[in-house]
């Protein structure tokens, strides 16, 4: 096991003028589960593949354990990777899939067998060790792909959107298993996903990437509660945070000439204000909120509506009575303020 250290890592693909990764510094502790999350094209997969050694590094340095791995082959880096489409060897049985990497490392037959038994027990794949991948279901293939990583007992696991090929129910289940597995094995893991829910639930530390740069790093809850920019604010959480162009004047948040919240400490001036849907308090009495439509989630409701010209999404419990005209209360303590131009947190 080992930590991973990235310093000013850059990647420019040949023939492209703009770098895909524009200088990333990241220090991953030994045993930590770090999730790289961001929209497609943000460079998260590229970053992971550079750690794996599948992409060359244009500039900067990657250290795994205490070795600079910039020019090392993937096999020499002591990492294991789980791919999105599993990448199992189709002509080999599960056992052969697991043992292939070990055999190539000239490991003793008895040690290989011992590790396979152990891995099979951890992942409960013992029953189909002799089957070929095509005879397995999606979830089973996913386990075998993870088994191929575990059996190697590497310094770090790299996950490249491993759950995105599974159906929703299985994805939830495997998410739990990955979390559980990490609690047990405590192997340094880097996990790439575009699913913010997956990212929130799995991560010890969350890295939000945007356009080749790190937007924010931190514990998932910290990022959720104190997003550093409008990008992070809009990316984490479902439904997403309401963001509005507004103005702070005399301690009140003014939107379209009407005061939404008062008693604020914020500096006067134009801002982008944000509030989580679950922080908005809706009351049935007619007021500033015009209801458009409602999504029923069973336990809660998502209420879509407008305050003035501003679209607003609120999440309420079932006890809240709904009507076409409602009053939305935005508690001052729940408001986030961002710079109107740069989008940075104020």
């Amino acid at each position, binding site marked *: 096991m080992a930590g991973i250290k990235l310093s000013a890592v850059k990647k420019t693909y040949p023939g492209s003028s703009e770098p895909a990764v524009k200088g990333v510094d990241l220090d991953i502790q030994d045993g930590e589960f770090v999730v790289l999350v961001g929209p497609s094209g943000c460079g998260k997969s590229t970053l992971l593949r550079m750690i*794996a*050694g*599948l992409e060359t590094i244009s500039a900067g340095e990657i250290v795994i354990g205490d070795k600079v791995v910039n020019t090392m*082959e*993937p*096999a020499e880096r002591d*990492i*294991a*990777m789980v*791919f*999105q*489409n599993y*990448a*199992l*060897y*189709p*002509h080999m049985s599960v056992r052969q899939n697991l043992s*292939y*990497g070990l055999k*190539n*490392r000239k490991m003793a037959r008895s040690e290989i067998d011992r590790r396979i038994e152990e891995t099979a027990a951890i992942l409960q794949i013992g029953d189909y060790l002799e089957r070929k991948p*095509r005879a397995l279901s999606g979830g089973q293939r996913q386990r075998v792909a993870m088994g*191929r990583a575990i059996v190697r007992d590497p310094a770090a696991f790299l996950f490249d959107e491993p759950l995105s090929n599974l159906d929703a129910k299985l994805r939830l289940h495997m998410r739990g298993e990955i979390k559980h597995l990490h609690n047990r094995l405590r192997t340094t893991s880097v996990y790439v996903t575009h699913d913010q829910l997956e990212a929130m639930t799995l991560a010890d530390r969350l890295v939000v990437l945007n356009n080749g740069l790190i937007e924010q790093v931190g514990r998932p809850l910290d990022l959720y509660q104190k997003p550093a920019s409008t990008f992070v604010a809009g990316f984490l959480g479902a439904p997403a945070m309401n963001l509005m162009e507004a103005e702070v004047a005399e301690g009140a948040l003014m939107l379209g000439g009407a005061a939404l919240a008062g008693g604020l400490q914020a500096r006067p001036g134009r801002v982008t204000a944000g509030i989580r849907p679950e922080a908005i308090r809706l009351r049935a009495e007619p007021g500033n909120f015009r209801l458009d439509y409602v999504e029923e989630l069973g336990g809660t409701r998502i209420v879509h509506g407008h305050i003035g010209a501003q679209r607003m999404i609120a999440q309420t419990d079932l006890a809240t009575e709904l009507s076409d005209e409602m009053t939305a209360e935005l508690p001052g303590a729940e408001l986030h303020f961002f710079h109107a131009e740069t989008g940075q947190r104020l």
Partner: protein
Amino acid sequence: MVENRPFLTFLAHLVLILGVAFVALPVWIAFVASTHDQATFLGGSMPLWPGSNMWETYRTILTDGVPNSGTPPLTMMMTNSLIMALIITFGKIAISVISAFAIVYFRFPFRVLAFWIIFVTLMLPVEVRIMPTFKVVADLGLLNSYAGLSIPLIASATATFLFRQFFLTIPEELVEAARIDGAGPMKFFRDMVLPLSQTNIAALFVILFIYGWNQYLWPMLITTDEKFYTVVMGIKRMSDVADSDPQWNFVMGSAMLAMLPPVLVVIFMQRLFVKGLVEQEK
């Protein structure tokens, strides 16, 4: 589409039966012809049922040959054909699988150019380049040899192209997984590419074996020694006699035997084929 109309069923069967008859009847006639003696044909009639001379015909062509048309025994010609076909088949598969591997998986200068040069040779089958190829083979002293028979036919791009197309469908992630598992290029070739190409190799084997076996013009040009005659050109020699009537029973008998190996290859490899297709990844 499932339709159940008696008339359509009848029509479909009719067409299929006609098709089979169209293909099979000449084969049957050839077989029948090989079982009669020569006199039957010279009489001008064409029997439709086998005669009694079958044993005699096949014994003669297999062991003695047909001396008055200058053909050696068929066993020898068939052995020659077999050797030539197998060298062509294995040579072509070996060379093309390796060159396709190089073109798909390695980044070397002029890689695309190399591919296109190989591709362009598709337009140059033996028949087109027959004079220069003959000159090269003759200058190398390969006339009347198995090398001369097969090597010029090995050089072609069809198989390379086929393997290239197949390798391009192998997912990139599989290559990467193998790299992480410590498989170098040669190991990857042996452990991944070859096993995955099994069905393609089987298919190519069938096609190339028949291609090699049926070669006619090229063996005709470069063999003057009876020892290297192939069966397909032998049939032609048999039917081409000066000063007397062709011995049709021998010609037809040889044709029957010449047909046999390709048929066996198809029947035998077909099982491998179908197995491969069924086992194919979804």
